């Protein structure tokens, strides 16, 4: 077994009396899609926020490829190979689709204290951005302003932008949320195709997508991981069924 890409140990986050993350330990192995499921309010997004550094955990360690990143700023973590997509799309609305990807590549390339050359005439940057849009299937929409995209297209663009930072680990916060059935299917196919390039931690409510994609699944309830295992093991786990699957709102 090779060293995990992401290794979280004993993570704790309290908001006053509420324990939002309760001693969470999990890891993501190279080339793996590890899904994180759980009812609403289980603390999934809180966990993601701690992984990217928007929230500070009260205890525990986060390691990316064996390196402790718990004390680093968001920007540093991204530079070390972390990337995320947002549950509620978070893009640059006044820029074009292409600009959104190009700026991600620009930032990955190094500092932006360059005041002279016109960034929109930078051929290498534009071509690299088109490459990522091709992967996602958004290339025909490259010159469209982001504000004019449909919700599904914005979700796809989120993914293209995250990939453009060339991450080692992708944190996907509900990539299917708000997508129609066909769009969901497309997204699943897309993520399947990307599996060989990047490891993923997938937070998702859509069970069909989770069971189609995940190598392993962890179930988070009230901030605690109650089970980790393959799709089959999770399906058969009585505790999980009681806490989550058996409640009759699988698709919530």
């Amino acid at each position, binding site marked *: 077994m090779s060293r995990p890409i992401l290794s979280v140990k004993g993570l704790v986050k309290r908001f006053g009396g509420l324990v939002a993350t309760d001693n969470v330990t999990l890891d993501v192995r190279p080339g793996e899609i590890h899904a994180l499921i759980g009812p609403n309010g289980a603390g999934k997004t809180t966990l993601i926020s701690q992984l*990217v550094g*928007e929230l500070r955990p009260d205890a525990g360690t986060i390691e990316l490829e064996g390196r402790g990143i718990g004390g680093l*700023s*968001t*920007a*540093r*973590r*991204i*530079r070390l190979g972390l*990337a*995320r997509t*947002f549950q509620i799309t*978070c*893009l*640059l*609305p*006044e*820029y074009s689709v292409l*600009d959104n990807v190009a*700026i*991600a590549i*620009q*930032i*990955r390339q190094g500092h*932006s*204290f*360059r*005041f*002279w*050359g*016109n*960034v*929109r005439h930078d051929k290498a940057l534009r071509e690299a951005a088109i490459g990522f849009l091709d992967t996602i299937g958004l290339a025909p929409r490259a010159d469209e302003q982001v504000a004019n995209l449909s919700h599904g297209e914005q979700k796809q663009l989120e993914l293209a*932008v995250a990939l453009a*930072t060339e991450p080692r680990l992708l944190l996907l916060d509900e990539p299917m949320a708000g997508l129609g059935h066909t769009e969901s299917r497309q997204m699943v196919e897309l993520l399947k195709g990307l599996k060989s390039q990047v490891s993923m931690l997938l937070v998702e409510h859509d069970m069909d997508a989770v069971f189609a994609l995940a190598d392993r699944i962890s179930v988070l309830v009230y901030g605690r991981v109650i089970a980790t295992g393959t799709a089959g093991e999770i399906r058969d786990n009585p505790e999980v069924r009681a806490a989550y699957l058996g409640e009759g709102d699988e698709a919530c």
Partner: protein
Amino acid sequence: MDKSINKPFLLAGVLIVLVALPFLANAAGYPALTSLATRALIYGIAAASLNLVLGYGGMVSFGHAAFFGLGGYVVGILYQHYTQDDMLLGLIPGTNQLLVTLPATLLVSGLAAALIGALSLRTGGVQFIMITLAFAQMLFFLFVSLKTYGGDDGLIIRRANELPGLNMRDKQTIYYVYLAIAAIFFFLLWRIVNSRFGNVLVGLRQNERRMAALGLPAYRYKLAAFVISGMGAGLAGCLMANFLRFASPDMVHWTKSGELMVMVVLGGVGTLFGPLIGAAAYTILEAVLASWTEYWQLGLGFILLFVVLYTHGGIQALFARIGGRRP
């Protein structure tokens, strides 16, 4: 962003008019027009500098009069030591050379912007507005209480700074020197807003969270923009003090920050030449309305209200729409 620069013919036309302006003004019998245009150029530089942080970067600074005033005082204080033939703080000799005062202005206003920016940029939103305002007012009261340098009354600069080979007492010469400086300034600004730096700056205004998620350490870029912007405002202050031959606490007063903001909004927030157009409009309106009534600011207020409510992006956007182009 800056559609106007893509129209080189329009730009060349405007430049020709600006070059010919003193002659046209004399021919038309309004020589005062040249002075008016000089003021508009100076305020245009100051407003465009403010616009770099306000319009492009989304940082609403309400304290840019601080840098504008500092620019003026650098000229005034160095001139006073020059005439008294003594040393500032016993170290720095005075001077009346523009080639010295201008870099000195950039240095002083840049340092001040670095200091004020480093502290203010730890906040955002309304707090940022109030903190920049507070710093500018601190500087205002400092200059009011500095009796050595004129206190309330300000500093009179009996002769404008000299430039080798040019007669800087001639209004027309000053106009052309300032026009050249403004042309260089706007060329540099054009490069900056379209560069990689400008790209992340505009990105930060649109969505700071997204930029962090791309791995951008936002603070240093905002600070750099704030310093550049402060230097631009300082440059304008230096030019203004030379033009008026006077530096006073009025230049640092918060109403000056407000005026610069009005010019930016009037002309077009986040556009390259909008602030220059706004500065010209403001200067002309002030001159025209003030000749009718001493309550000219009331009239200006109504016009500003109209521009904000109905032009969707200032005079620049209005022009663009009249020209049949979507802004």
